[in-house]
């Protein structure tokens, strides 16, 4: 079997991980293994499993294979590249690639600017991309914004529909129905606009 990364050498390192019920396998040659995971004699036990484990998340190489039909992530990025305008965070100028490959740290606005694009990244990292749990006590929280408060009292029916759509989007991604997910995402954007 050839190395999945360079497609030249024979793969000697095989790794399968199951994160939150999702299994992904990788096959790498010696060189690519060294490059992407670490030097020789680097076993999980030697070096702290966490390092190895997190390494997979931070590495761009593994992202496409985890999202084989990544409409939400890959296409957006490719389209942006093709049209010559890579989307940047309006506040700090970071691109999605830089953020998800640990080339640059997030600024508060990055999370908002790449809200949709980051969904699969969070899904990969946390098994979900929708918050559950505590919320600020004050009611002046508005969705996906950090500055202006102009949408703080949106009408309730919109809010309700948005919540349902987000739930559906979550399901669609979980079931890997990416075409549906893209449609739902567009509808959410429309409502949010």
């Amino acid at each position, binding site marked *: 079997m050839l190395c999945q990364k360079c497609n030249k050498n024979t793969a000697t390192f095989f790794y399968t991980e199951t994160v939150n019920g999702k299994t992904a396998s990788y096959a790498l040659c010696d060189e690519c293994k060294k490059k992407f995971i670490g030097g020789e004699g680097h076993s*999980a036990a030697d070096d702290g499993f966490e390092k190895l484990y997190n390494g997979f998340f931070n590495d761009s190489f593994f992202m496409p294979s985890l999202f084989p039909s990544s409409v939400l992530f890959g296409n957006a990025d490719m389209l942006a590249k093709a049209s010559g305008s890579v989307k940047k965070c309006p506040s700090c100028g970071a691109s999605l690639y830089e953020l998800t490959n640990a080339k640059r740290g997030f600024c508060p606005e990055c999370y908002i600017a790449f809200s949709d694009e980051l969904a699969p990244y969070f899904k990969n990292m946390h098994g979900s991309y929708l918050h*559950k749990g505590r919320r600020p006590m004050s009611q002046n*929280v508005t969705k996906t914004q950090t500055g202006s408060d102009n949408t703080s009292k949106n009408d309730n029916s919109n809010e309700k529909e948005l919540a349902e759509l987000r739930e559906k989007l979550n399901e669609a991604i979980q079931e890997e129905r990416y075409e549906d997910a893209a449609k739902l995402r567009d509808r959410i954007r429309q409502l949010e606009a």
Partner: protein
Amino acid sequence: MDNRYSISSRVRIARNIKGFPFTDRINEADMASVCDIVKGALGNEYSYINFAALSPLKKRAYVEQHIVSPEFANAKNKTALFINSDRSVAVMVGEEDHIRIQAFAEGLDLAKALKYAEETEDVIARAVDFMFDEKIGYITKCPTNIGTGLRASVMMFLPATVNSDTVSAISSDLARNGMTIRGVYGEGSSSFGSLYQISNNVTLGLSEEEIVERVTKIAENLAVAEEKNENRLCASNPDYYRDDCMRALGILRSAYMISSSEAGTLISKVMLGANMGYVDIDNKNNRIYRALESVFPATLTETAEKTPSNDRERDIARAESLRKSLA
């Protein structure tokens, strides 16, 4: 509750204040404002420590006691620390996130630690707006903490379960459940004193209660396994383990000089022997472990009556402290 294997529980909540950049891009004036805002919010119930102004030794002593993280002690920005009167809650301002609330509880009691941390969060939240997004929850500097910003961890004594042969299997098992195990002291597979920390990796998509429940469940399972493994291990050669434990206690009770690594190894043997009933020593509130915690270099130097000035004097002071606390 059986706390022989779970020494302490800790919950950490990460929060950032709306309107300020993250700590990597914040200027001095803004960072000082953040410290002041939290100081104003917490009021007099928490004692304020101008952490940035402390000596490196004092900072290290706080790290050794697990009250602050090593990152906090090394932070370049202005940092402030707030501790409540019974030391169950510590608030770090100026770590990776603007605010990191840590709450502690004895033994396995994450629910209690969570309650403490959330009460403190509510106090701060009355004075500030945290960065929050409807979809991804509380916004943190690192995406690994996004959502709840919650890290729940349990410090466990696992001498018979976790060793260099089993740590990798246990790690991947835990990773599948969104958890991590790491040595409390030292790196990688071998942990000084057989002390390990179990904590959640996943912070988004689960509620605080769900995270705490999951980590608790894992800690309970590990405690059951550890009890079985200790019984099996000691049954394989009871005379040897009894002798090992009694000798260890003998050294700790009578040595004139002792290094921290030797102390760690011996304390671990005594803890195992106490669990097995080989020695008659009161281990209430993990007294044996606490004896170890108070003899780390910086803590010892900080607390000794006569400040030790070199390794030899420290080893003498350490042995003296252990003789007293394990008498």
